[in-house]
């Protein structure tokens, strides 16, 4: 098994595990983590594909950096929403 095969397989495995968990779990925080794991897996796939050419493909690398920024943006909004919803739930119950 070559290095490329290993990391492609790893990326696919991570993405599958993350997606499975995202679909099955109902805890909000666990869902947010699962979305992030799914993102990590897809980025690993992308970068493993970028590493096929001798200097790493700059277009795919740039795409991965874009993906990281989008990930932190949606995670931040998700985390704030979780905080808000659970704060309301805690305060709202008599």
């Amino acid at each position, binding site marked *: 098994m070559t290095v490329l095969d290993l990391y492609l397989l790893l990326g696919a495995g991570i993405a599958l595990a993350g997606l499975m968990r995202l679909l099955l779990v109902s805890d909000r925080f666990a869902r947010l983590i699962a979305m992030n794991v799914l993102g990590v897996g897809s980025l690993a796939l992308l970068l*493993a594909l970028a590493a096929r050419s001798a*200097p790493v493909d*700059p277009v795919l690398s740039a795409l991965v950096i874009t993906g990281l920024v989008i990930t932190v943006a949606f995670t931040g909004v998700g985390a704030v929403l979780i905080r808000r919803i659970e704060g309301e739930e805690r305060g709202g119950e008599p």
Partner: protein
Amino acid sequence: MLDAASPHQTAGLLDLVLAGCVLVGVVVSLFGRSRRAQAMAFLCLGVFMTFVWMRLGSVDVALAEAGIGTGLLSALLVHVAAGERAGRRGGSVDDSTTRDDRVMRAGRDARGSGIPRGDRGGRGDHGGRGDPGGRTARAGRAVTGLLAGGVVAVTAVSVWTGARHRLPGWEGEVGERLPGGVSHEVTGVLLDFRAYDTLLESAVLMVAGFVVLALGRDGAPATGPAFGGGGSATASWLVRLCAPVLLVLGAWLLFAGSSSPGGAFQSGAVLAGLLILLRIAGVRTGRFDAAWLRPLLVLGVVVFALAAALGPLAGGAWLSWGPGWAFAAILTVETCLTVGIAAGLYLLYLGLANPVTARSDR
């Protein structure tokens, strides 16, 4: 230090150990018992992924992962996980609240431990919401799961088996379109070849900042004391000592981006991390937060859009840089983007502090 591997050599012990570490990180962050365990495992996963990116030969992505992925993302997640406990402790003054909390915690643990909702028979007895669906919902869920699983498995396997045979066809074009003055390919791609993407991406971060502001109390970022009441004196001293170093590191990453790995996103992440550390250490940043964060948040996108309009004025296309002023334009845009990204990332963190502050004020 990890050296980049040739992708076609056989995977060695290092790769296998690294892959094993990543898998352990994934499993614990997905199936950890508590939110804290999940958040910490995700932090470790980020560190391992940084090594994977370096092993695959992309220092740019490794830097971005270390700054944005591991640093900021985990700061957000750990904050939610840890604040959960602090908030619960704060609310447990009254006995009935404690009981409710215990019930909620039991429900959350059941949800968190991977038991599908339909199999949790006893939850209704605790006064929780009833099971929303019966057999239909369960069948629908199974069909959806099977469909999604099938699609993803087919896609992933086809990528894994078929992708190596075809290299992307944009190699020549990228070389032709790289702007003058920027010799590092990734920066060139981000700010010229795919500049439109980068513009929209920074706009996404800006909108995330708007959402956080809108969800906050009075539409303002939290300006109260930092979460946890500040660290110890030693930590505070260390942060104050390191702050100038981090500032220089951030600026260096920004300017290094034109010729070597680095750039606006990595630099912005370091600067946002610096602001977060200062806040945790108890440095008073309230006035800066209140007066400057909002203008700085929009600065990057506004300057980028203005610079994009320079192309049509000079007779070229939207978002194209003339050869004479490409370097100046890219440097200006990068600097403003860095400031905007740092402000956006810091705002996301501040937004997390706000709801708790609002709750504990009562």
